[in-house]
């Protein structure tokens, strides 16, 4: 896995949107695996700082960083600093995303653009910023957080589904380009994970949804983090270009 005790440098794992939910769980898990975890947040400083503090208390290494993935300037500044201070980023988890649900026919341009620009644009910007270092060091792990929405086609989520679906295709294409350099690129597509992002769902919608989940429960961030952790190990070096659905077996 990682080798924090050897003379080799401590590898750096950057997780976007890590102040809460799935991103936070992934960040905490990668820190536990021995990476120095860089947890980025757009606005929820408290959440990110709490996560970083929890990591440190458990004996790990982490920092919370304010960086909006829709801001090229923020991304560049962060990547430059990590290049200078830690020789760059070894693991990148593109997790930052926002929801702006609504019927397509009534969707404002801003809703479409923001969702696409955060999940897909943010992935583009962040991955581009750290890729050169991974290629140079001939080791890297890119994990893109897609979604069940990329496959299930539910009404009211055309923008989100488009962005998350795009990540699946992007993953395959990028994996083909950088495999020769020891960099793997994969995506994880979580189903309904009980975090703040789905807190607005009504009881009826929840019950209805559960009927289509063989595992008969909502997922939690701890259902996602272990697999991401595995993808970032040495042992996963032959696994690339894939999208793995972690959705309780959702049928639909």
């Amino acid at each position, binding site marked *: 896995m990682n080798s924090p005790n050897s003379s080799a440098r401590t590898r750096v794992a950057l997780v976007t949107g890590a102040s809460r939910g799935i991103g936070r769980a992934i960040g905490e898990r990668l820190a536990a695996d021995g990476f120095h975890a860089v947890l980025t947040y757009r606005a929820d400083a408290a959440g990110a700082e709490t996560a970083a503090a929890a990591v440190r208390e458990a004996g790990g290494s982490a920092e919370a960083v304010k960086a909006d993935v829709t801001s090229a300037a923020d991304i560049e500044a962060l990547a430059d600093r990590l290049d200078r201070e830690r020789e760059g980023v070894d693991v990148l988890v593109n997790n930052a995303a926002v929801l702006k649900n609504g019927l397509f026919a009534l969707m404002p341009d801003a809703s479409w653009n923001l969702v696409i620009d955060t999940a897909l644009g943010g992935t583009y910007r962040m991955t581009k910023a750290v890729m*050169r270092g991974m*290629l*140079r060091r001939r080791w890297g792990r890119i994990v893109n957080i897609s979604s069940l929405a990329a496959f299930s086609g539910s009404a009211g989520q055309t923008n989100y589904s488009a962005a998350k679906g795009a990540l699946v295709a992007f993953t395959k294409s990028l994996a083909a*380009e*950088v495999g*020769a*350099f020891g960099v793997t690129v994969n995506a994880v597509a979580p189903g309904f994970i009980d975090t703040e992002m789905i807190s607005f769902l009504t009881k009826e919608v929840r019950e209805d949804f559960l009927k289509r989940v063989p595992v008969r429960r909502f997922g939690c961030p701890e259902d996602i983090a272990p697999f991401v952790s595995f993808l970032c190990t040495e042992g996963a070096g032959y696994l690339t270009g894939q999208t793995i659905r972690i959705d309780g077996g959702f049928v639909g």
Partner: protein
Amino acid sequence: MPDDLKKRVKELIVRQLKLEMDPSSIADEAPLFGDADGGLGLDSIDALELVLGVEKEFGIKVQDEEVGVKAFASVNALCDFVREKAA
């Protein structure tokens, strides 16, 4: 001096791409990429390697593809590019 740069570039190409050939046997004007006759027949993965090699050897960052395609057309093109960026 120009010859020295050419030599460095040819050695960089052979070293970075692990080619089994004598650097001096690379013609100055030979197309590095693609299937052209007399060319080296390098591909896009090799292109990435060269970008990294140029960065390491000359400290020059190739930021976008447009620049890269022109700069890497041949040994001569690459020498021109390095001289231009170093100026």
